[in-house]
């Protein structure tokens, strides 16, 4: 499933990185502590977090996740949006909490 299909099915709104929406997604990792995320997340997974600062972009890029999903309607900092657009990292937003998003992902991918 591509990031785009995922975003449509789960009704995520798009904050940035639309140019990379054809990336394939499989699996997910939930976490906010960056040293955990960088070592434990899986390439091509979705990363669900409530972190909104620009360092999220570096970690997403370095760990090769397919997209970042911001849970609980948190608002991304402008520098994060900007960096995700430049680097081509899909940045999605959801009103749901991380658990509910992960359950939804399990159903559809």
């Amino acid at each position: 499933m591509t990031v785009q299909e995922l975003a449509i099915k789960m009704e995520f709104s798009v904050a940035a990185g639309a140019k990379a929406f054809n990336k394939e997604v499989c699996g997910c990792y939930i976490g906010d502590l960056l040293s955990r995320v960088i070592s434990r997340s899986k390439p091509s997974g979705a990363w669900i977090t409530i972190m909104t600062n620009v360092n999220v972009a570096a970690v997403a890029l370095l760990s090769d996740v397919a997209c970042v999903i911001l849970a609980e309607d948190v608002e991304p900092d402008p520098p994060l949006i900007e960096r995700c657009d430049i680097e081509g990292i899909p940045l999605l937003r959801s009103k749901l909490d991380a658990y509910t998003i992960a359950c939804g992902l399990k159903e559809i991918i």
Partner: protein
Amino acid sequence: MSFLSELIKLVYQVDGDDFTAAGSASSDVKRIMKQLGMDSEITRRVTICMYEGEMNMVIHAKGGEAFVEIDDEKVKILMKDKGPGIPDLNLAMQEGWTTADETARNLGFGAGMGLPNMKRYSDEFQIETKMGEGTTVTMQIWLNGGKKVA
């Protein structure tokens, strides 16, 4: 392996307390390894080691320098700072131990996993530190026959 006829040497200045540019040295090394067509698992391990070292210099040492060497046997990363040093290395190497301040923790740092990650994902890990003088971390990742880390 024949893809590298010459040694590649990279040098980076890492700014202290500039959280917004943080990770740029690691990103650059990753990009170069990809361009060289290097193994993705090796690249992942180098990337983790490099990022953790870079962030530690930003957060704990007001910046420093990173030296990366790639040859046909290994990737060697040397990170050198003139920060405060680490008073108790045994404690610092423990998972979960952190002195990251509130600003850093609010940004998602301070899991106390950086040094343990660096040790775990490198084939050889050395750290030297002196109070008031600084810290030097050396990590090597073999291109062949290195660790398998899940």
